[in-house]
């Protein structure tokens, strides 16, 4: 494999993603964790660009970073008192969880490595093509119209539900 600038940047993004994800699960300060998550999300967005998915990348940044992360930060601020800012982890749980996670990782890696169809599969080398138009076509005028509408309703319902649940006074 040629080690070009592109490859370098790819590895950079990959490293950024994985490392920040690791931070997300390890740092004790929840606010720090949230910011690490932001970095992870940016990393994934970068990887999307490498996958020729410009629209997806943009969505990732806008929705995740702009929406979900802010939501999480709000959640942190509303629930945690000053003392709750730190995350406590019990040792036993840590070990058990780590073991399972590790086992899972090994399993996944084995699968990835051993599936013949996936082995050394490379892309077709096309340059970045704008996908927005095609996606728009598919979603609004194609086979994905119904799922799209369903998902819209779902989102709406979820938001209404969320608003309902989090209201202060609960009716009997």
């Amino acid at each position, binding site marked *: 494999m040629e080690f070009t600038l592109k490859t370098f940047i790819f590895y950079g993004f990959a490293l950024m993603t994985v490392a920040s994800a690791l931070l997300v699960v390890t740092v004790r300060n929840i606010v720090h964790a949230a910011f690490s998550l932001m970095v992870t999300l940016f990393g994934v967005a970068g990887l999307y660009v490498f996958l020729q998915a410009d629209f997806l990348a943009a969505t990732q940044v806008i929705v995740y970073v702009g929406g979900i992360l802010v939501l999480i930060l709000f959640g942190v601020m509303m629930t945690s008192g000053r003392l709750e800012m730190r995350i406590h982890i019990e040792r036993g749980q840590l070990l058990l969880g780590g073991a399972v996670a590790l*086992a899972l990782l090994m399993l996944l890696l084995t699968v990835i490595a051993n599936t013949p169809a996936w082995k050394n599969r490379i892309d077709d080398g096309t340059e970045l093509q704008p996908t927005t138009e095609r996606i728009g076509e598919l979603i609004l005028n194609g086979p994905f119209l119904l799922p799209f509408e369903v998902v819209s309703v779902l989102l709406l319902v979820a938001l209404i539900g969320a608003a309902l649940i989090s209201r202060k006074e609960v009716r009997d």
Partner: protein
Amino acid sequence: MTVSLISLILLCPLAAFAVFGLLGLVNRRFPRQDYLSTAAMLIALACSFLLLREVVPKPEAHTVNWISLGNVTFSMGFYLDSVTAIMLIVVTLVSSLVHIFSMGYMHGDPRYPRFFAYLSLFSFSMLFLVVSDNLLGIYIGWELVGLCSYLLIGFWFEKDSAANACKKAFLTTRVGDVGMFIGMMMLFAKFKTLSLYGEGGIFALSASQLTTGDMVWLSIAGVLIFCGAIGKSAQMPLHTWLPDAMEGPTPVSALIHAATMVAAGVYLTARMFPILTETSSLVIAYVGGITALVAATIAIVRFDIKRVLAYSTISQLGYMMLAIGAGSYVAGLFHLTTHAFFKALLFLGSGSVIHAFHAMHAHGHDDEHEHDDSEAHEHTHDQGDSDAHGHEHSEDADSGHILGSEIPPDQDMRNMGGLRHKMPITFITMLIATLSISGVPFIFSGFWSKDAILAGVLGRAMEWNSVHHYILFIMALSAAGITAFYMFRLIFMTFFGEPRNQEMHDMAHESPLSMTVPLLVLAVLSLPVVNTLWFNADYVEPPPQPHLHAPTHAYIAPDTKTGRTGLALSLFGVSEAVAAEEDAGHGTQDAHADDGHHGHGPAHTIAMVLSICVAGLGILLSWLFYHRRTLSAESVTTTFRPIYNLFWHKYYFDEFYDGVLVALTVWKARLFAQFDGSVVDGIVNGVGVVTRDILAAFVGFFDNRVVDGLVNRVAQVTWAVGGRIRRIQTGAIQTYLFVVLAGIVLLILIFRAL
């Protein structure tokens, strides 16, 4: 023309009732319901007279399909012959008079409009019954008059006695009706129709299809249909409701329980005349005869003026049944007609008397001058009768008291006496009716009709040489004598002698015009000449009886002719001439007659002489007992104490029914209900419980029978294991998730390894 006349006759009263019913839904009243109903009745009366001239003597029928099924059709229709026309006259006439009478009698009652509405409904039902040409139609009218009777007996339903009486009346007659319905089912199963007349009617079919082998069946069917008449016409043993029915307002008693509805049974039996066999005829005759005698004996000892009349009605209805059972069709119907008028007159007369006493009560207790009848009734009811009692038979009256047959003081003859000066019109008219019912000869209609029946029965007895009919004749004759006795007892106790209750006597007064006019009209109607206007011997022809076979040695005489000659007598008033004429008529008509018929002419004469004798005897005895008082009722009573008790307790019918039949039914109902609640439902619930607890039950079984300790051990183990396993349920989601994931990893590993 005929159809529209009949429709008018039926629809007028119905409309009068409908106005009441529909306005009642919105809690309104027609301002003058009484005028409306009376006018409707008068129109019907006029139409009936028109119809009499229209139809008679040619019978006419008009039918429409009422229910049409695949193979069967139930039709509804009119059948008009002379009998129908006469019945229409009788019903509309009496009904109109009672309407008018009620305007005075019921005045001031809080439910005054309703009373007239009910009367209208009754008139409609009764007329419907009369004109129907098929059994189903008759049954419909039959039940509807029963309903009206129920409503009217219970008109003053605040009184418990009235509430009881109306229920009793409906239920008792319904028992008979069920018999009638079974009879209808039998006929229907055989002939597939319930129409009576015409080609496909029951009469034509029974005449053409039935053989001698069917006679038992036909007799049973006939008797079952007659059961309906037993109920409606208060024959033995279903007569007990009629005396109680006197709880209703007196005009109702006059209209329904004397003149029309109770006579419907006789009418039905007469209608069924063509399918009667000799057995069913005999049953009918015996029921009638026994009823006539028994009811008459009970009437002797009553003190309630209305009850006397009620038992008298039962007795007279028995007479009519006897006539029809003995084949004297025309005589029976003639007696029905005459009885309707004079008995209505008697009841209205007694109503007039009661009204006079009533008013006294209203005055006596409040200062109001309005006569509030229901209020008066409550007063009388509350007051009871013990204080107001006369001196006679007080201990027996007390036993009556215990039995619950309290006599309202305004109806108790022991409070009356000497009223003839106070109420002259009432007295005169009632006297006419009494003379009529007692069979005082020649100028009163009752004599002719009763005489016709007696002659008819005796005639048949002589012709058939039948012991049964001789017995029946003696029964009828004794009943006639007793009737004369107790009717004059009533007159003497009420109108003659000294006032027994001075306070009440002082208050009594003659009734208003609206009440006396109907009395006068009815008095005129109790004269035989008037009756011949519609009851004309020329067109009342008995129908043939194809299934009635005389004993082989006897000759079948159309002894129903006797009835006709009786009428002829009434018309001309010359008995010998007509007797001769009748004899001659027989000679020409039945040229082949054998010696049996020679007894017929004599039968008539004998019957007439005997009937005059017994009537005279009855009146004489009555006079001696209750007016001259040369004979003492008390001493006779003491001498014949057991018989007196039997009469006083009405042969213990009520006690038997209440104590045995009603109690048995209620007991059975309780039993069934308990069975339903405990056994049937118990089984159901049991199954439910068993199914639910099947494991527990199984364990229990194991526990008891197998090894107690082992089971306990099992339980302990289960408990312990449960306690352990319970801990797995930490409630922490993460633990669950952990287990799930670990499980997934393990599973994948295992299956990959394989």
